[in-house]
């Protein structure tokens, strides 16, 4: 039976494939409607400094998010496993909170509390950037913690730690030289998922008035006919690239993190 498949299985697959592909084809068709130069929209987009700036800004924010998230989550997950397993339920609960708090609610609270004394962050660019990265770090908690924790379960944390300690390694060295390398696959998956999310994110970046890729594309979509189609396809390509890296680098991994939150 395997290899041929029944008629209905092919029909369902065809339906799913059509749902996936048709909007992409239609978007491409729309993006090359410019006459006489088919690729005018793409040329205009690439010539527009706002495109590059937005993409670059979002990329940097993504990288910062990954760094901060890893610096918080890896030591925490490691410490919970090694020293304070009784606090695990609380830590797990906290990392799952972003599922209950959608981005729109999170940014609502952040704006209200950090736009007044004693800590006004929304008034300056740096403050707003800090809020943006912090919000993205919070959103990354559920899948980052899960990926790291599953990765830690696969290695014998206690024995490795004791071996390192008996060789005279300190905590910082243990975490950076021992735990991080052993979690490479999990960390890379989490990192690329974060990039895929952050680069296209709109809600939080928009309310914090950041010059990110999402708000740029949104504005373009309201003002221009063909360019948004081109940028949407580019954005899809970037998502594909990030997820492709996860699949490629995560071969043989126990878990692949692929699920993020609402947008």
């Amino acid at each position, binding site marked *: 039976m395997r290899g041929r*498949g029944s008629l209905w299985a092919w029909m369902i697959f065809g339906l799913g494939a059509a749902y*996936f592909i048709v909007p992409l084809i239609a978007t491409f068709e*729309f993006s090359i409607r410019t006459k006489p130069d088919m690729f005018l929209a793409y040329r205009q987009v690439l010539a527009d400094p706002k495109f590059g700036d937005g993409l670059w800004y979002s990329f940097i924010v993504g990288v910062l998010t990954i760094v901060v998230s890893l610096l918080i989550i890896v030591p925490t997950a490691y410490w919970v496993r090694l020293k304070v397993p009784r606090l695990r339920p609380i830590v797990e609960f906290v990392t799952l909170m972003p599922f209950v708090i959608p981005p729109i609610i999170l940014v609502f609270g952040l704006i209200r509390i950090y736009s007044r004394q004693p800590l006004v962050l929304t008034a300056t660019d740096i403050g707003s950037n800090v809020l943006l990265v912090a919000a993205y770090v919070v959103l990354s908690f559920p899948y980052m913690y899960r990926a790291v924790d599953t990765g830690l379960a696969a290695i014998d944390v206690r024995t490795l730690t004791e071996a390192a300690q008996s060789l005279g390694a300190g905590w910082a060295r243990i975490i950076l030289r021992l735990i991080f390398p052993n979690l490479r696959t999990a960390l890379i998956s989490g990192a690329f998922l974060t990039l895929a999310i952050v680069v296209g994110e709109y809600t939080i970046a928009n309310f914090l008035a950041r010059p990110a890729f999402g708000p740029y594309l949104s504005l373009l979509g309201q003002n221009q006919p063909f360019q948004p189609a081109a940028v949407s396809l580019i954005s899809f390509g970037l998502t594909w690239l990030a997820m492709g890296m996860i*699949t490629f680098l995560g071969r043989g991994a126990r878990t692949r993190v*692929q699920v993020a939150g609402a947008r």
Partner: protein
Amino acid sequence: MASAMTPVSVRDAPPARPARRRPSWSWLGLVPFFLFSIAFMFLPIMFLVVGSFQDSEGQLTLENYADLSTGVIPNAFANSIEISAVTAIGGGLLGFLLAYSVILGGLPRFLRTALMTFSGVASNFAGVPLALAFIFTLGQAAILTAWLKTLGVDLYGSGFSLYTKIGLELVYMYFQFPLMVLIIAPALDGLRREWREAAENVGASSGQYWRHVAIPILMPSLMGAVILLFGNAFGAQATAFQLTGGTLNIVTLVISSQIRGDVQHNPGLGYAIAMGMVVIMAISIALYSVLQRRAERWLR
């Protein structure tokens, strides 16, 4: 969200004589994590919680919650719940059938790989670019609309519009059913061949096997996944905003206008709406984790 197995922690050998109890400072290692979570998650949410019980003079009141039943708000909640439920069930069904067709339906192996990869991409292709892609597909001047018209199906002539509830549901489906594929595939993989063989040995037909063995085992996973899809659609804002320009009356867009501070100038009401949303999300996640625990009994 694959199930994480928690191995029983290896206990150290009991000490020869009871050690003197020292106060443990090891929780200090978790301080950075908790400080960050408090600063950027709990305090902002607490601010909304407290604000939702205050009137504009800062006095304690329940008025904001009573006001949830006024104006466009009940309708916004109803619309959000309806859209989320429809796309969760529709996306859940299509996603389940798709996963089934590639895992158990006998399709060639490479189609399964293709489907899983695509699902990873599509479930993360949400927000602004997704809304735009659908405008270029099913908008008034778009190719699929025109093509259907030549086939005699006049979408916009028959009352369809992409910028309404049904349109938004079609768009949400694009990330809902791939998400379902990702969530449910491990559960389908966990259906053991022995169970089917055992059923066949006692003379069960394929239908009986599904009705009495497979479906009951899968049920917690299926329901859990559908609830997760519900929450996924319920919290979405960017897609809806880009598609409708904020005109559709759903909760996330009502909150958006509250953040901008327009409409009624009653911040407390905005906070109460946010709380309503958090409560609905919390209920669905609680249900999900209960179902997830049940599902893990079978799928290991």
